[in-house]
């Protein structure tokens, strides 16, 4: 699927601060025209969201985190071992508390990269170096993730 800004005749670009409701049932993806900066949101229904979650790709581009072993199984099994839920945080500028790591690890892998970037962007704007559960609650409240 591709999006075109009709007035500019330019391809719209996926924005990595797309939003994902906590219950992970409906993806909202933002696209922006690089010429006029007009932004639109693609809102998917439950079936479309489920389909994307099962083909093993990441929206907003592949990340080292999301492409890890057993990504789909780890994030989609209702009852899985804890080891499956762990995720490696590679952004050395920020320290993630254990609770924050577990929480970001629970975000479905196909939008985890976007979620991580959203949290980091939020922390960077506020000059915060340690990402904890409280900060993630704030992000959720502000951007709906």
């Amino acid at each position, binding site marked *: 699927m591709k*999006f075109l800004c009709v007035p500019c005749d330019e391809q719209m670009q*996926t924005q990595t601060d797309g939003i994902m409701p906590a219950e992970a049932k409906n993806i909202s993806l933002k696209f922006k025209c690089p010429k006029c900066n007009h932004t639109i949101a693609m809102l998917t229904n439950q*079936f479309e969201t489920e389909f994307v979650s099962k083909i*093993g790709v*990441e929206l907003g581009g592949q990340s080292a985190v999301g492409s890890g*072993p057993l990504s789909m*199984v780890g994030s989609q*099994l209702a*009852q899985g*071992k804890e080891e499956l839920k762990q995720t490696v945080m590679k952004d050395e500028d920020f320290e993630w508390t254990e609770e924050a790591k577990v929480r970001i690890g629970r975000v479905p892998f196909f939008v985890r990269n976007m979620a991580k970037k959203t949290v980091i962007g939020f922390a960077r704007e506020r000059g915060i170096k340690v990402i904890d559960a409280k900060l993630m609650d704030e992000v959720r409240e502000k951007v709906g993730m």
Partner: protein
Amino acid sequence: MKTYHDLAGDGGSNIIAQVVSQREKLRSRLDKIKHKISLMSGKGGVGKSSITANMAACLADRGYRVGILDADLNGPSIGHLLGVGNDRKLTIDENGVAPGVGAMGIKFMSMDMLLPTPDSPVMWTEEAGGTAAWVSTMESTALRELLMDTQWGELDYLLIDMPPGSDRIDNVRDLIPELEGVVEITIPSPVSQHIVSKSITKNSKMGVPIIGLVENMATYVCPHCEQEGKLFEGEDVRKLAQSKEIPFIGKIPFDTRISRKTASGTLFYAENKESVTGKAIAAAVDNILKFIDKNSKR
């Protein structure tokens, strides 16, 4: 106005490249495994997993490096058969997940290894209103991940223990185009033969090489005196093989020692290869190896 084909890429997600990358990762994992064989049956309960585990033991006994992929996602049993409990801690790093290692050094990967308790089911959602529409897609992706993300290392043989039925073979063929072939397993009962004949027909039509048909529980072996007796009434399975024009590659008796040994974590074949049943397993393996010698490109 520009059309779909005028737009390069998909706006940032690069889905095609991700799919290509998955394929490359899978290929680099599979290239280290010389021969891949699926073991399947039409009907459940014919002893397919026990035969798979004991054939793997026979191959390992001959010095081959062997792995088993438990493709029965909802009824995984290979870990149990190889004597590895589901409480084993998972070791995952950026290179993949370490396989379980069972009796005789046989490596395996199974959904059971990923579940928190022995009685945990494979559930993709715990919501009562969860949709079943995408379960098949989910299972296909799960199978790819189990195959692609397991650190199999160098193997001579990877045996794929399939679930009952013939639907999963489409998935396996897509993932492993170089599959050497399938071993079909049935018991003598008319119902089992009826169902396995559908599996054979499907594989023949799809051009999947059929290594041959194994008759399990062909007779009953007394564990004390090793005398054999008839267990099931039914048509001779050889006739089914002849009518389908596939090789009949083995006749394995029902032997109560198989289940006793596997329950204690020791594979039957390892300690009973000179028994009637052990020799029957070895004879079927001989036929599989002959097929591979004759047909394999590797």
